[in-house]
Structure formats: C-alpha cells, structure tokens
C-alpha cells in the first residue's frame, strides 16, 4: 500500500491533474476504510470470542494471577499453598493431626475468642463514630444511637453481648487448656501469655462498662475503683498507704480516675484505655500467642496417651535414686 501511494504521487506530479489526484485518493481511502470494516468484521467476533473464553476461566486473567499466586485445582500442593500463601491463613500449618480438627478437643474456644475480638473491634469502631467521651454528651450519644442511628441499637447490643460472650469464651478456653494439660512443656510460656490476655479481656470489658455514663456503669466503676483505695502501699486506705503519704489526691486510684471521684476525667481515661490502649496491647499479646502456638509445635493434641511406665525421670532424680 505504501508503495502504491508513492506511485500515485509520482503520476500525479507528472500530469499535474489535481482533480484526478483527488479522485484517486478518494478511491484509495475508500478502499482502506472498506478494508478496515472488513477486518473489524472478522477480528471483533474473534477477539470477543477470545474474551469470552477468558471470562469463562477468570483464573487465567492477569488480574487474577497477580492476586492469587498459585493455581486452584484440587491438588494436595494447591491445598497447602492455599493456606501457606495467604497472609491471614498462614497462621495455620498446611496439614494438621487428623484428630485435632475434632471440635470436642479444643471446643474451638480460642478461635471463637479471637473472632469475638474482631467483631468487637468492628462494631466498636462504628460506635466510635457516634460517641464523644464527655459528660452529658456521652449519655446523649448512647440515646441517639439507640433511637436515631440506623441499626444503632443493634450495633450497641452486638458490641455489648459480644463483650460478655468473649469473657465467657476466654474462661472456657482456659478451662479446656487446663483440662488437656496443654500448659505443660513446651507451652508454659504461652499459658502465661494467655493469662495476660485473660486479664486484658476483663479490663477491656470493665473499662467499657463506664462509657454509657449511666447509673449502672457509674456505680460499677465506683465500686470497682474504690477497691483501689485499699491497695497496700499505693492506696490511701490501704495498709501502710497512710504511712507512705498517700491521700485521695495522689494515690493509685487518683491515677486511674484522673481525679478523686468518677467524673469527666475518669470517663476520658476509661475511653482511651478501652478504645486505644488495651486493644493495642491485647493485639500484640495475641500475635505472640498465635505465633507461639505454632512455634510450640501446634495444638497440643489430641496426643497419644502416655503411660506412667514411660515417664523419663529427670537426671537429678535418677542420680538420687541410684545413690
């Protein structure tokens, strides 16, 4: 085509006939357009067909393969990769003891506790959009949530009941860990991380109790923090507190409440502990907790039972027995 064009150009120049040139160009252009349309007719269905084929199997698209790093057909390798190459799932090993997936062993309680923590974080953030940690305003915000915010009541209820449920779930989790002897070697340290998580869970629940700033929370927190007055050494009514110069204005209770009574400062401190301080600390401990579950060799069981006769006495004891 390019050569054709060139020839025409030379001819045109020789004759000097402008009109002829124009009509020649027109035929050329028309022929070109015709060809384009022709190609479109052929290519479009072909490309469209190709596209449809691609859509039929989205796992072949570049977008898909950029997100998921391996194939998805049901092969053992892919099952393992599905867990290992996912940032959230890689908390798990690829394979586990066939019996430890039985619900009756772990009761799923650690996982349920963690799930409730996530639910609480989610609903808690939504509640924070509506809540101001100030006297008068706080209570109004809760009323507003209950009566005007769409699904506000459901939101508040869910946050409340999930919190209670989380306390129950942690207790049951601890109970099962104890009953299965899962705190024994090598999981002593993780049991301790767990105990701290237990305390943090209770503190989370307790600091949240004050936030609606109603009578229930106010008196519960008053009763609770009054005990802090009696802290030995650090409370003004506790043993040796007086001797160490503790007064209602400088003791540990004052530090907790930001004042000598449960008031605006206590509300603010409660709020900050509840929404920022403790959740962050608890998250850190959970990270360690889960990490250690893996590092300690995964879930403790159900392990094969061990017999008395198979206990290896520690070296010291043996030596003593021989002597």
């Amino acid at each position, binding site marked *: 085509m390019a050569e054709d064009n060139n020839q025409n150009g030379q001819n045109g120049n020789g004759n000097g006939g402008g009109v002829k040139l124009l009509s020649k160009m027109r035929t050329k252009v028309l022929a070109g357009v015709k060809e384009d349309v022709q190609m479109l007719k052929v290519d479009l269905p072909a490309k469209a067909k190709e596209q449809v084929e691609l859509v039929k199997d989205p796992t072949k698209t570049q977008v898909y393969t950029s997100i998921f790093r391996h194939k998805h057909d049901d092969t053992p390798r892919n099952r393992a990769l599905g*867990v290992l190459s996912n940032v959230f799932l890689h908390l798990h090993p690829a394979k586990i003891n066939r019996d430890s997936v039985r*619900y009756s062993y772990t009761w*799923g309680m650690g996982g349920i506790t963690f799930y409730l923590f996530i639910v609480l974080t989610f609903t808690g953030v939504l509640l924070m959009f509506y809540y101001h940690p100030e006297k008068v305003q706080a209570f109004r915000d809760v009323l507003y949530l209950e009566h005007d915010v769409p699904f506000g009541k459901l939101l508040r*209820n869910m946050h409340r009941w999930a919190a*209670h449920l989380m306390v129950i779930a942690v207790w049951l989790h601890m109970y099962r860990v104890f009953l299965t002897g899962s705190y024994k070697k090598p999981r002593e340290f993780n049991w301790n991380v767990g105990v701290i998580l237990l305390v943090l869970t209770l503190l989370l629940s307790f600091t949240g109790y004050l936030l609606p700033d109603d009578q229930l929370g106010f008196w519960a927190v008053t009763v609770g923090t009054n005990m802090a*007055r*009696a802290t030995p050494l650090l409370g003004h009514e506790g043993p040796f507190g007086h001797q160490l110069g503790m007064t209602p204005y400088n003791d540990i209770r004052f530090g907790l409440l930001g004042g000598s009574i449960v008031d605006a400062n206590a509300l603010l401190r409660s709020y900050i502990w509840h929404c920022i301080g403790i959740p962050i600390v608890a998250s850190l401990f959970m990270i360690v907790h889960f990490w250690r579950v893996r590092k300690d060799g995964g879930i403790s069981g*159900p392990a094969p039972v061990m*017999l008395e006769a198979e206990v290896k006495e520690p070296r010291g004891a043996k030596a003593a027995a021989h002597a």
Partner: protein
Amino acid sequence: MDWHQLWEIVSAPDNVPIVALVPLLIFYTALAVKQARANDRLIAELEANPQEAKTRYRKAWPFKPGWQKEVHVWPFLLRVEFLAAIIVTAILMVWSISLNAPLEEPSNPNVTMNPAKAPWYFLGLQEMLVYFDPWIAGVVMPTLIIVGLMVVPYIDTNPLGNGYYTLRQRRFSIGTFAFGFLFLWVTMILIGTFIRGPGWQWFWPGQTWDHSRLIYEVNRDLPDLFGITSNMGKVVFGAVVVGGYYLLGGFIVFALFRRHQPKDYRRMSLLQYSIMVFFLLTMVGLPIKMGLRLAMHIKYVWITPYFNI
C-alpha cells in the same frame, strides 16, 4: 415464693450471660469428662498389657491402618472455623435483636444504686468483700489469682496428661483447678448475682428484695473469743493464728501429698513445692474464712494498727 423477683433477677439483661454460663460449663465439663473416661479406659488397658502398648493407636478415636495421620487444613480445619464464625455470628445477631443492652438513668453521684454491683465477672471479688477487707478482696486476691495461674505450668511437674483429657493421671491438679474455678470463682459469682440484694444482704432465690431490711449482726473478732483485749496481744495472737494456719496446714499438706502423690512429691523442688503449698493454703483459706464468718460471725482473725485480716 416471689416469682416476679426471681424473674427480674434472672432476666436482667446483664445477668443473661451468667444464666448462659452455667449450662455451658455443665456441657463442656461433661464433654471433657466423657473424653477423659475414654482415655482413662485406654490407659488402663495399655498398662495391663504392655505388649499391646507398643502397637496400639494410642487414642480413644477410631483409626484404621491406611488412614492418613494428617489432614489438610484447607478444607478440613478452615471449614470448621468458618462454620464456627457463622454460628457465633448468628447467635450474636439473634441475641442482639431480642435483648437490649441495659441503659439506666444518667449517672448521678447523689443517687446511689442499691445494690451497686460490679459487672458479673467481678462479682466473685465483690462477694469476697463480705469476708475480707478491700485490700485483700480487691487487690491481694486478684493478684494472687493471676500469679497463681501463671505459676501453674512451673509447679505442675507431672509429665502425664499433656495433650489429652484424663482424670486418672492428673487427679490432684484437675481437682485443685476445679475447686478454684468451678467451686470458688463461679459459685461466688452466682452468689453475687442471684443471692445478694439491697445492702448486699443474703436473699434466697425467690425471696422478695426488702430495701428496708436491716440485719443486726454482731460480728466478733477471733481474739475476742479468747478474751484478748490489748492491742499488742491481738497483733501477736493474729500472727500466731495465721502463721499457725500456714505451718500446720503446710504440715498436713506435706503428710498427705507425700503419701498420695509420691511421684509429684519426689519430682518437685523445694521452691516448687513451697509455692504450691502457699497457693493451695491461701485458696483453701478463703472458704475457711467464709465459714468462720457465716457460722460464727467472726470478722477478723488478725488485728493490727495497720491492717486487719
């Protein structure tokens, strides 16, 4: 019988979790005991038959040769987790739709709530306030509970029962934990929730809460019973009683533990053993003091100018 009063307590939204806790504890305890029994039977069988012990699949679960020992997390574990999440969500949804979170009047320091109760999970501590001064019930006891839990793995030297349910191999540790958790902690919470009424007085379930009821309870101190009046005498007397409790108690524990847990006893170092005895006696001290108070109206055992126990 005041059914209305009973219903009011049981159906108070914040009490519902405890109403739920009791059946849950019963269910899971039964589930654990069932598995422990099965394992204990297996242990007894294997112990009677050492030859079999070498070849048997050592779990109470069925296993056939050729079965894989390990399964893929995807899908076998993940589907359980996914299901659990859905079920928990469904329960939460239903609960949240059907029951509203409590909201009382705006807080008012001038109007006291009677009874003013802590959240239910702390009612065990609040109940302890009846029997101990706040520094013990509110500060020392919680600290000891936490520390006590933390030392558990370091003082339980029994290597058996790691990773499976059993009663036979861990009678002592499981008994102790059940006593502390089920008997002391949960029972005290139940008392605090369902029994304690206005003025933190004892109202049987179904008894009407009488806000004007006064109980003239003359509480005595243990030294009074022995006619000790001087302050110095009380200090010394209390120290002797409390010290004596730990010494004598320690001796009794020693005599029993040595005989009935000889293996544990041999394995434990002096430090491990002393820590265990301290926590055990302190824990048992709680119901003893409760008994002294409820049966004999004894308030304090040890009276000093600085603290009373």
